[in-house]
């Protein structure tokens, strides 16, 4: 018995500005959003992608070496993340899942901050208000509502900042992601739903979650949507800019499905060979987001050896800094677990902390004590 339908088809109805071979398309109306993207900007996007891929690889290596407990690689999703991430204004606010380290990089998150949580040293990495990005959300779909609420509040304030929710194809099955669309539409909230359809939710192919293009879901809620080639950094940038602009202008929410591919495992704890045809990965390699932009840059004479090695150096330096930040990260203190549970004093917890302090002290005092 076949339990499931055929599912959506990756290649159809995509906004694409750059073909896999690096040539430009006519842009079907979206090029107007890229008027300022000159050679330097193209090089910038290229360098960004090279750097985040390098960071990602280094983090994966750090995990393999036991320096990180876990890492969720973004390999293959650089264009979706850099394209959208670079479209944001400083005062926009991002609510993401765990995989948006490329977006975090665009927001200016520091290397130690990026790793803190994956090393297990802290419950999260950075100050959300310093970079206007919430720390990673692990509960699938939950952050879509946070973004919507933030956007509602932005509208109450009369501000023109936009909230952006990042989530995966799997997340579209969660009630929360759908309720977020209901609320966003009802309150015409300035929020952009950015779904990276990387074809997989751990071992589950997207056809389990969706019988039609994911982008087709939003219009039924009254939210305009677009399906973009998520391996095309220019198209990702353009559609995000359009959606942000709509939101800023009072046009309400938008939904973007960025069609891309998770080239690595779900996390370093996952083994995709158990469930995934290796040919699929090979197929998608030909659509690699970095190679694609490299081809364009080459064709336009922008990828000379000097720039190529400069980009590589920048990436290597970033990787080195990342590693350094990781291995030198200070260990948490032994009573830190009690901090920040509450913002205001809490009698019962204070008592527990004091008891534990005395307990640790008694251990240390005991013959052979170590604490």
């Amino acid at each position, binding site marked *: 018995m076949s339990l499931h339908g055929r599912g959506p088809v990756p290649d159809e109805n995509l906004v694409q500005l750059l073909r896999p071979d690096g040539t430009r398309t006519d842009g079907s109306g979206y090029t107007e959003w890229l008027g300022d993207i000159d050679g330097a900007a193209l090089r910038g996007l290229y360098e960004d992608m090279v750097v985040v891929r390098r960071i990602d690889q280094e983090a994966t290596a750090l995990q393999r070496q036991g320096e990180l407990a876990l890492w969720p690689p973004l390999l293959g999703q650089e264009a979706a993340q850099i394209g959208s991430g670079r479209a944001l204004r400083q005062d926009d606010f991002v609510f993401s899942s765990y995989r948006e380290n490329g977006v975090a990089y665009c927001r200016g998150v520091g290397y130690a901050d990026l790793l803190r949580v994956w090393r297990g040293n802290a419950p999260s990495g950075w*100050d959300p208000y310093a970079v206007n990005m919430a720390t990673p959300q692990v509960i699938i779909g939950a952050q879509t509502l946070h973004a919507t*609420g933030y956007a509602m509040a932005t509208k109450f304030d009369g501000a023109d900042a936009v909230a952006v929710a990042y989530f995966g194809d799997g997340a579209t099955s969660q009630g929360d992601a759908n309720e977020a669309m209901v609320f966003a539409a009802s309150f015409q909230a300035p929020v952009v739903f950015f779904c990276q359809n990387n074809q997989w939710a751990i071992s589950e192919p997207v056809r389990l979650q969706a019988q039609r293009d994911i982008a087709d879901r939003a219009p039924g809620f009254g939210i305009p949507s677009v399906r973009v080639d998520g391996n095309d950094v220019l198209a990702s940038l353009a559609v995000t800019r359009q959606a942000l602009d709509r939101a800023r202008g009072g046009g309400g929410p938008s939904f973007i499905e960025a069609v891309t591919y998770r080239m690595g495992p779900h996390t370093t704890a996952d083994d995709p060979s158990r469930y995934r045809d290796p040919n699929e990965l090979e197929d998608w390699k030909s659509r690699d987001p970095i190679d694609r932009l490299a081809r364009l840059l080459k064709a336009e004479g922008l990828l000379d050896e000097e720039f190529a090695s400069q980009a590589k150096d920048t990436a290597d330096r970033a990787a080195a800094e990342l590693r350094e930040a990781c291995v030198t990260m200070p260990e948490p203190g032994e009573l830190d677990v009690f901090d920040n549970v509450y913002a205001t004093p809490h009698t*019962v917890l204070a008592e527990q902390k004091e008891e534990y302090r005395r307990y640790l002290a008694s251990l240390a005092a005991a013959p052979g004590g170590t604490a």
Partner: protein
Amino acid sequence: MNTMTFGRAINSGLRRALEHDSRVVLIGEDIGTLGGVFRITDELQKDFGGHRVIDAPLAESAILGTAVGMAYRGYRPVCEIQFDGFIYPAFNQIVSQVAKLHYRTQGRVKMPLTIRVPFGGGIGAAEHHSESPEAYFLHTSGLRVVSASNPQDAFLMIQQAIACDDPVLFFEPKRRYHSKGEVDEDAGLDSYPMEQARVEIAGDDATLVTYGALVQVAREAAMAARDDGISLEVIDLRSLSPIDFATVEASVRKTGRLVVAHEASRTGGLGAELAASITQRCFYYLEHAPERIAGFDIPYPPAKMEHHHLPDLDRILDGVDRVMGRPNSLSGQEGN
């Protein structure tokens, strides 16, 4: 001093909070034009506008989840859950987000949410309309849980909950919405801390602890017991998380006996925590094991049967008899 109902006192407290801080917003189902199914938010949308008192689409997870997003932006959302039994769709957002965000962000993001929940039974309602889910939340670290039992407390505590930088579950004993009492609307927010229990009636022989709707029943029990020669100390717990152990401890050290009463099912209810903690804290003072008078371990029953589930005066007095070592339903001969 004004005489007003419990429901009106909350309304008045909410109004104060809305006036006092433009970052306070109310969100919930039917709270706007209708003023809530219990009229607790009556007139507030009219007076403060649709973006301060927000009628939300019918989705509790989204009510809480969007409130989290608003809190991220500095707002102090007050979410109304229409009835106790409808809080469960929001459980995920409450337990994994609201309760944890301050910890997760190492104190950078505050979650000054208030979650108003009309709770408890005794009103002959349909299924899911009479539940007492407080134990789920007092077991959830990162949350505070309170319950007022009279209009004055309701008026102050709702404002204190909203002013608190931590998330607060505010349980409203719905069968007391129409009870009247004196309310001093000039009382300052610091006149009695939200986390402090209150000795309602002083007594020497046994300590009776409860909260919410049963406080009134406990007062009646104290009267009845007095006629029977037993001096009960009645404590309104008010804060269920954290529990004000100091106040209960002081009482039990004096009386040596504890009865705790609540509507929620007995197993794993607040009474278990109170009995266990007080036993641990006052073991050598206890003359008798603490007794719990609670709802049974059953789903909340239909209207015509709820009086067989809810602790009432007689069941509480039976519990008092037990800790006093007097003849009671479990001692000796049966009635028939």
